[in-house]
């Protein structure tokens, strides 16, 4: 086998996303196909998708997707789940057996509602309770990983090329108003099922192309607030940072973007809008440990919308296009053209400039 240096490995991860502002639902086949022209950005060690609006019949229940390394782990975990949730449905997550995807763990899906009695006794709101439960399983239960935990959305990920992962999880059978996708090229961390993107908590999901130089500073800070980084890769910390900034601290998407991709001091200094300047000074000061340095392009998915963001130096590529009610985001324009050959207004957002797209009120 030839190693890097003897053979050129053109790599760099791939991301793509599509959203209908009207809330029109699209099959997952389109987003899976969009990954094909970017095949060489991945190396087969991880691919995944998040779909929003895919479980309308269970929209009021948290959809938990879990990986188990054995049947006995599943039995143990289900005992734990039953102590905390009403489980309205419990099933094997449907997959196709294909040669390209092997060594799959036990993959299970639950639709659950937290038990009111438990919420009352713990004095927690529903989301905080679910988030803490996810952390507890991922930390304390060896061989069990919750990889999706939002309402009316789901994450599907595996070791393999993304286009194969889409076939494996039968994405053509789901319909969502928005989708995000990732093809992985792991550089420093193992390629395993739990390490594939997207990384999710509640309905928040992150797909990420890049590498976080500030990872451990970010991790140490965020772990002070009950989050635990257990998935052996840098990206998961972005998900927890976004959850902390938006759900816990109540920041807007724009403000959260200004924290993780903060403008340079010199750029803030040159701002002429005094209120805007003060706000950025505050955000950089209050959340200095949540500045994410190093290259990244990310798509942050949530119920009802998504946000695309580049690091402030824009060390990764990302383009945005649109057509009718749809907005497309991808590492390469070619991926957008696969989804919509006539996409218009193709542009590359500047580093640190968030692109936020929301589904119109009431349409999701």
């Amino acid at each position, binding site marked *: 086998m030839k190693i890097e240096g003897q053979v050129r490995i*053109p790599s760099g991860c791939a991301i793509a996303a599509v959203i209908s502002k009207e809330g029109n639902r699209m099959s997952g086949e389109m987003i899976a196909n969009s990954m094909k022209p970017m095949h060489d950005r991945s190396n087969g060690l991880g691919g995944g998708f998040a779909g929003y609006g895919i479980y309308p019949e269970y929209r009021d229940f948290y959809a938990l997707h879990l990986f188990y390394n054995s049947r006995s782990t599943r039995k143990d975990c289900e005992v734990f789940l039953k102590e905390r949730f009403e489980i309205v449905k419990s099933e094997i997550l449907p997959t196709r057996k294909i040669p390209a995807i092997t060594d799959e763990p036990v993959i299970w899906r639950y639709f659950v509602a937290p038990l009111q009695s438990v919420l009352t006794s713990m004095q927690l709101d529903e989301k905080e309770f679910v988030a803490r439960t996810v952390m507890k399983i991922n930390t304390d239960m060896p061989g069990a990983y919750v990889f999706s935990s939002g309402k009316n959305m789901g994450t599907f990920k595996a070791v393999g090329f993304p286009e194969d992962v889409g076939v494996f999880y039968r994405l053509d059978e789901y319909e969502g108003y928005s989708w995000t996708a990732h093809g992985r090229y792991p550089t420093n961390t193992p390629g395993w099922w739990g390490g594939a993107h997207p990384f999710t908590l509640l309905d928040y999901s992150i797909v990420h192309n890049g590498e976080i130089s500030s990872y451990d500073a970010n991790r140490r800070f965020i772990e002070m607030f009950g989050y635990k980084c257990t998935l052996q890769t840098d990206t998961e910390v972005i998900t927890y940072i976004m959850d902390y900034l938006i759900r816990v601290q109540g920041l807007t998407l724009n403000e959260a973007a200004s924290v993780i991709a903060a403008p340079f001091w010199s750029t803030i200094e040159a701002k002429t809008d005094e209120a805007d300047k003060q706000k950025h000074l505050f955000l950089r000061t209050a959340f200095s440990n949540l500045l994410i340095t190093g290259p990244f392009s990310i798509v942050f998915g949530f119920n009802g919308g998504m946000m695309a963001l580049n690091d402030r130096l*824009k060390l990764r*590529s990302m383009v945005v296009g649109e057509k009718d009610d749809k907005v497309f985001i991808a590492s390469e324009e*070619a991926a957008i053209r696969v989804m919509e050959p006539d996409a218009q207004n193709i542009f*590359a957002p500047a*580093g640190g400039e968030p692109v936020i797209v929301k589904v119109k009120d009431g349409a999701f």
Partner: protein
Amino acid sequence: MVINALNYEYTELNQVLRDSNGDCTITNCCGQRFIGAGISGRSITVSGIPGNALGAYLNGAQITVHANAQDAVGDTMNDGTIIIHGNIGDAAGYAMRGGHIFVKGNAGYRAGIHMKAYREKVPVMVIGGTAGSFLGEYQAGGIIIVLGLGTDGKKIVGNFPCTGMHGGTMYLRGDCSRVRFPGQVTTKTAAGDTLVAIRDYLSEFCELFGYPLDEILQETFTVVTPDSSNPYRQMYVAN
């Protein structure tokens, strides 16, 4: 010869291209990389979206794209011409050491990063619209021209242009009063019609994309050059 790229991955497409002779048109291109890498003496026309590193190491051929191009167009190109009738992605002309790149639209970040020149080898990049941040980062030679055409008052270049620039020349159309340049470069303004050194390139740009040269030259240009033979003098330590 016409090559339908529809079902080719990039290695196959480039093999077909290398195995053919004479001028080529590639149709249905969608993200295949390294198109035309290292080739000489031919003309290639691309319809669709070429992948990253279009015309890398180009050695005298002419490549025309009738759409946008992705990242790293003309990476380390040596000679030839690349003509893009749309926008280009990041790091266009990366370490380019010869030849010409003409872009009708906008360039992404880091256009002309580490361009260099040696004697008769003088690379030239002309960008019709705007350029992103870090334009001409570590520029060591060659000519970068940005015209800011049809940009509706948008800043002609993003933040931190000319960072680490230590050679070559940059020409930005307009007075650039809103652009902040680093300390190691000198800017001066010049009337467009006095810029003899770049007149031929502008003329070629106008012919390619159908702009009137006179109008472009009516505006003043900001000419940027590094201001010493040792621009790194104080960057890390006094040396």
